[in-house]
């Protein structure tokens, strides 16, 4: 249920502008990897290339390869839609579908693709996914209410439940807690800890404490200046990055000297 990701020499372009340059990174299966770095350093952009979500923006393209257990996401004949059903994503702001109930939101990935699913299977999937997202006990009595009626933290866990309902190999999270209050953030962080037993989790965060708390490995991204492409500066075990980084700029960043 979980696969590793290997990125080889990846460049990301918006039109003629190179946003991210020469990234090489190996992300282990069943682990939590955090991407940290100052604003605009390309960490979110890079995250999006891991399930080809960047293609939604006009003019975005990549060079290089991203291997999911040895299979290139950008190989010929690969359909981005298939990629995204194997690599799920959770966004910065919770975005449950406003026209759907909580239950339908969880089933969205299945139903929107028009797959036939029996009622009992659907019920089981809803319960399993919501339980997996630590939300089942809070919403089990109001599954038919609109998902937008939940609190921000609950909505975000609903979005995670929605992502894991399609049983992906990898879950990408783009600053999943930045729009949430501290208590909801804690709930999400606990959830991430549990998710890694089954999934490969990659999380972008602005919050260094969060990266230190939840991740096994941390990657630090930086830019030389505005208009320059973002680069992967350092990638190592999380304790090493925070306590004993090998690069000067990493040390400056994690000790709060800039960013």
């Amino acid at each position, binding site marked *: 249920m979980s696969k590793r990701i290997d990125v080889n020499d990846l460049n990301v372009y918006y039109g003629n502008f190179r946003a991210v340059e020469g990234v090489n990174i190996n992300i282990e299966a069943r682990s939590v990897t955090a991407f940290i770095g100052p604003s605009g350093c390309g960490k979110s952009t890079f995250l999006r290339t891991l*399930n080809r*979500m960047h293609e*939604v923006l*006009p003019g975005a393209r990549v060079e290089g390869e991203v291997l999911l257990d040895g299979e290139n996401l950008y190989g010929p004949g690969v359909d981005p*839609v*298939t*990629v*995204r*059903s*194997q690599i*799920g*994503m959770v*966004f910065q*702001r919770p*975005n*449950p*579908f*406003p*026209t759907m109930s909580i239950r339908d939101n969880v089933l*969205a*990935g299945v*139903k*929107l*693709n*028009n797959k036939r699913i029996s009622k009992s299977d659907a019920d089981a999937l809803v319960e399993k996914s919501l339980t997996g997202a630590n939300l089942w006990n809070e919403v089990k009595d109001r599954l038919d209410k*609109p998902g*937008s*009626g*939940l*609190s921000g933290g609950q909505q975000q866990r609903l*979005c995670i439940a*929605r*992502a894991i309902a*399609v049983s992906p190999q990898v879950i990408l999270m783009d600053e999943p807690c930045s729009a949430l209050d501290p208590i909801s953030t804690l709930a999400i962080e606990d959830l991430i800890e549990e998710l890694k037993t089954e999934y490969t989790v990659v999380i972008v965060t602005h919050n260094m404490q969060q990266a230190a708390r939840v991740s096994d490995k941390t990657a630090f991204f930086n830019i030389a200046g505005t208009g320059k492409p973002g680069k992967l500066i350092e990638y190592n075990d999380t304790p090493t990055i925070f306590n004993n980084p090998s690069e000067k700029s990493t040390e400056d960043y994690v000790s709060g000297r800039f960013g």
Partner: protein
Amino acid sequence: MSQTATRTPSPLRKNTLTKNQLPKWAIWAVLAGSLVLGAAVSSLIGFHVVGWALFSAVIFVIAGFLVTLSVEGERKAKDRFASNMIYAAFIVALVPLVSVIWTVLEKGLPGMTSNFLFTSMNGMTGVVDNETVENGTPVLGGAYHGIVGTVLITFWATVISVPVGLLTAVYLVEYSRGGPLSRGITFFVDVMTGIPSIVAGLFAAALFGLIFGPSTRTGFVAAVALSVLMIPVVVRSTEEMLKIVPNELREASYALGVRKWRTIIKVVVPTAISGIASGVTLAIARVIGETAPLLVTAGFVNSINFNAFAGWMTTLPTFIYRQLMNPTSPTNIDPSAQRAWAAALLLILIVMLLNLIARVIARLFAPKTGR
């Protein structure tokens, strides 16, 4: 600190914040004076209520300006003048609009009988109307054929316009990336919005005339003419509604491995559906009252025609037009006028109802956002 600030002006007795200000009653005094003076002036040239109101208003605006100028200064006077002009504009605008509605109600209500609603003008000749007037019996004949025609023609126009308009909006918002084609479509949709309705009628008449021979007039030709007017409205309102669907929802759907077309059909359109539906309803309300294009495309008959693809058809607006311009009995026009005004009232009711429905749809089916 604040204590001293409030205490300083008190020895002056007169508050500096209220000096050079007209008392509240002054403006009422000016109004009363203007009314009296207005009455005097208007009686000089023959007293009339409208004249009285007009002269009083002019005097009031000028006097208000002068009085304020003398006490409060030029800036305040200009402000007063502008305010009065704006109030005046509002009242002036209200007069004809109230008059229109009053006329329609006053003249239309007596004609709103079941006879009017459920019979056509088939067999109604000037002789019938003359007898009605001579014997004082209720007016015979009605607009049933017009109601049928209106419903059928509007139905076909909607059937043509909604799919085309909706899909075009989907193309513009979801697929095009600002290329020349999409800019072209946007531009020509704008051009279409400005097409005079009679020209749309001429186009449909010319089109069908070319294919089926000159003077082909059926309900469907009229529906095509109305579609030309309706499509741009549908495109515009749908486009607006699709644009305000947050991109996050599209991304959430893509990230679940859902294809673009399914995302559009199952996520984007349902989120915007209330706005789209209300836009379509407003578009229907706009074309249902069109008269000019129907005159040149659907012709005019007195009998009921249920077939939009053959034979001439009457709609409510053309019914009103014909009854007023060519009364059934040229010597006794009252029965025709009564039928026309009843039809006008019915038409306005339909349009208002559609507007109301549009609002209710927009409110009821709007996706529940927030908490």
